[in-house]
Structure formats: structure tokens, C-alpha cells
């Protein structure tokens, strides 16, 4: 027991204390959180725009007149569909490497590039979550809004979106959790995130056990905290569900 403890202590000092190797972990954690946060924001913006275009096009199909505006909307709808197909049809690691190592090969701002890559990817999934939320609202709600004299945007703003927001918030938060874990592949493009940090230590000490377990525990703690938060929000939404 004593020997095991001594060994553990030695390993711990080797991996985290000597040469301030713990900094790989903290810097990596900071970058992981930054990447997750920025890509979440970017993903939300992209997702809302795409969901808006796609559901407006679908929702107004029955009543729209074949005007020029309709054609423009149709064009953007097609564009959004291509975006969704490509971004959801290829692995995020490949997208990340293309962005970091091909398109922006001249830049070494890893955090910004990774945020861009994960944000573009997440936007595709967020778009479908929000669009699903909009389409799940009974069409009678749209009709009631329109029959009172609200235009399309006002109906969305006052009637539909408040209901959508409530329905999709838990799904969006789960997307956020998945995103946090997904960023662990950032190292493929030499972006110094948490996993990369752990890996760097392991490369220097030839000891994989301790740095990787530490990394896993940090992810687990983050995900558990966020999951707990989602549960809390869900309960809150249900409790004032009328």
C-alpha cells in the first residue's frame, strides 16, 4: 500500500508538477472552453438563420404567390440544404483539418480556427433542432396568428418562437454538451485543447495513464455539471408549462 502510494505520488509529480506540466492541462482546458463557447455562439447564429430560411420556405409554400421574393427565398433554401448535407455528411475531424490545414493554412490561431470549424458544423445540427421545433408547433397556431392580422414575422415573434424556445432549449443544451466533447479532436489540427494537453504531457513523460485519466475526469466533471443544469432547466420549464 505504502509502495503503491509512493509510486502514485512519484507519477503525479512527474506528470503535473515537474517543469510545471500542469500548465498543459490548464491552458488546454481554457482553450477547450473557449472553442466550445465560440463555436456554440457561431452555431446558434448559423442555426437560427438556416432554420428561419428553411421553415419560412416550407411554412409559406401553400399560400405564397410566385413572386420574385419567393424565388430568392427558394434559392437560399436550396443553399441551406446543400450546407446541411455537406456539413452533416462529412466527419467533423475532416472539416476541422480542411479549415485549419487547407483553407486557413497560413494562420496559426488554432483556437479561432477550431471555433470556426466546430461552429460551422454545430450550426448545421442546431438548425435542424430549431427547425424541428418550429415545425412541431401545430399549424393552427400560425393560422390563428395570421387570422388576427399578424404578418408572418409577427406571428413568429409573438406566437410561435416563444413556444419553440421552450421546446428546444433542452435539446440545444444537449447539443452544447456534445459539442464540448467533440472539440477533443481539435488536436488533429494541432490546436492545443485539453486532450492535446494531456497527450503532450504523456509524450514527454512516456506515461499515458495519469495525464489521460486526468483529462477524462475533467471532461466528466464538466459534462456532469452541464447535464445537471439541463435537468434543472427542464424541470423549470415543465413546472411553468401551461
Amino acid at each position, binding site marked *: 500500500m505504502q509502495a503503491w502510494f509512493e509510486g502514485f505520488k512519484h507519477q503525479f509529480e512527474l506528470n503535473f508538477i515537474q517543469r510545471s506540466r500542469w500548465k498543459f492541462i490548464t491552458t488546454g482546458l481554457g482553450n477547450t472552453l473557449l472553442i466550445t463557447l465560440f463555436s456554440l455562439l457561431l452555431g446558434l447564429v448559423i442555426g437560427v438563420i438556416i432554420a428561419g430560411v428553411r421553415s419560412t420556405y416550407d411554412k409559406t409554400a401553400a399560400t405564397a404567390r410566385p413572386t420574385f421574393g419567393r424565388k430568392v427565398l427558394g434559392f437560399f433554401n436550396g443553399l441551406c440544404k446543400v450546407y446541411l448535407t455537406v456539413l452533416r455528411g462529412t466527419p467533423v475531424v475532416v472539416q476541422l483539418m480542411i479549415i485549419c490545414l487547407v483553407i486557413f493554412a497560413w494562420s496559426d490561431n488554432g483556437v479561432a480556427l477550431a471555433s470556426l470549424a466546430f461552429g460551422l458544423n454545430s450550426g448545421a445540427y442546431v438548425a435542424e433542432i430549431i427547425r424541428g421545433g418550429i415545425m412541431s408547433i401545430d399549424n393552427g397556431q400560425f*393560422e390563428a396568428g395570421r*387570422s*388576427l392580422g399578424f404578418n408572418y414575422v409577427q406571428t413568429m415573434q409573438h406566437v410561435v418562437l416563444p413556444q419553440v424556445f421552450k421546446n428546444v432549449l433542452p435539446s440545444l443544451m444537449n447539443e452544447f454538451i456534445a459539442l464540448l466533447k467533440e472539440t477533443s479532436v481539435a488536436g488533429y489540427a494541432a490546436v492545443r485543447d485539453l486532450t492535446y494537453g494531456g497527450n503532450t504531457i504523456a509524450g514527454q513523460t512516456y506515461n499515458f495513464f495519469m495525464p489521460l485519466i486526468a483529462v477524462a475526469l475533467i471532461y466528466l466533471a464538466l459534462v456532469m455539471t452541464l447535464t445537471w443544469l439541463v435537468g434543472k432547466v427542464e424541470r423549470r420549464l415543465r413546472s411553468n408549462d401551461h
Partner: protein
Amino acid sequence: MTTDVLIRVEGLEKHFGGGSIHALNGVDAEIRRGEVVVVIGPSGSGKSTFLRCLNLLEMPSAGRITFEGVDITDPKVNINRHRQKMGMVFQHFNLFPNMTVLKNMTCAPVTLRKKTKEAAEATAKQLLERVGLLDRADAYPNQLSGGQKQRIAIVRALCMEPDVMLFDEPTSALDPEMVGEVLDVMKQLAREGMTMVVVTHEMGFAREVGDRVIFMDGGRIIEQGSPEAVFEHPENARLKEFLGKIL
């Protein structure tokens, strides 16, 4: 009743499914101010589609609809402005579940009519009083019975002070014991001189309140006239068959 025409429908057609289904095949009709018009007919006859075309919830495939002298099928017309004057009541109520009764009623007047919240609420409360639901002003729709929901839906539409009320089978989704309370509100509205177009299966209501009954089948108006003429002396064979089944 004046003879002032409020809604004129000319050659109205509506096709669905890329033209394969003809829900309306050339409907001509007039709704006069203060008139209560009841539209009856078998299911699939196009009566709901006809009603929903009146405020362009369904875009007509052909034909013209003139409301208060304006051709609202003209693409240049801002339909939202005219819809404010055409209240609509749906089979499934379509109250906004995330708003209280009062908010359901005041949301549109405050946003679209630029009424103050206080003025809109005062109007809403008067209307609630009239339908006996003032005590439910702060309830949410899922706390109400079907009959209560539909009465709220009616007064929600009335809050916009419409010139005509369109009813799309307003009692069809209700339990039988709640039909009466909704019909009572509609009767009261008719007595006050509201112009109403009502798609319904309630023949008693049609007889008692209707100024004119329109019988539709196959996307056309087959016969129309006073309730007495339509119910007591039907001429068309299909109308006779329809009445034979339901009366």
C-alpha cells in the same frame, strides 16, 4: 339587414396537390353586412376551404374576393390589414397555450392596433364578462374546458373589432354538453348584428339564427336560400339526400 355587400366572391377556385384535387370549382357568393350565412354540406364538399379562402388562409387558385370594396386577391394588397377586420374561429380553438386568456385577447390589439395595454385589457374584460368568463382571465388555455376555450377564441377575435366573423365548424371538436354554451354566444353575436359566415353541422343553429343557408357539394354552391326554403322545400336531389341523412 341592409343590402350593402361586405364580401363578394367571384369564380373562386382552389386546387390542391398540383391541380389534381379540385376543392372549389367556381364559387360565386355574396355576404351582405349584418347577415348570418350558414354553409352546410357533406364532408369534402369544399365548405371549409371556401371559408378559409375568404381571409386567404388558403390562397385561391383562381377567382376574386372583394372585401369592403377591395380586391384582396390582388397580390399588391396587404392582406394583414384586411384580416384584422375578419375574425376567425377554428374547430380546434387554436388559443395560444403560452399566454393567459387575457394575453391571448390583448396581444393582437396591442401589437397591431397600437392600443394601450390598459385599454385593450378593459375591452377584453368587458367581452369576457359578456361570455361569463371574467373569472378565467388569468387562466391558461389548458386549464379551460373545450366550451370555455371556444368562447375565449370567439372573444379573442372580437377584440380586433372585426366587421365579419368566420366560423369554421366551431362546435365540431366539442363534447356534446358544451355545444350549447358556444352556440349561445354565437346567437348573441348574431342578434347584435354581427356579419357571420358559419360552417357547421348544427342544423338547429342554421334554422334559428341563419338569414341564409348555402348548401355546397363537390366544390360548388348547389342551392341557397332562407333556412325555411332550404330545409323545408329543398329542390336539389343531393340536398334532399344530405338532409335525409342528417335530420
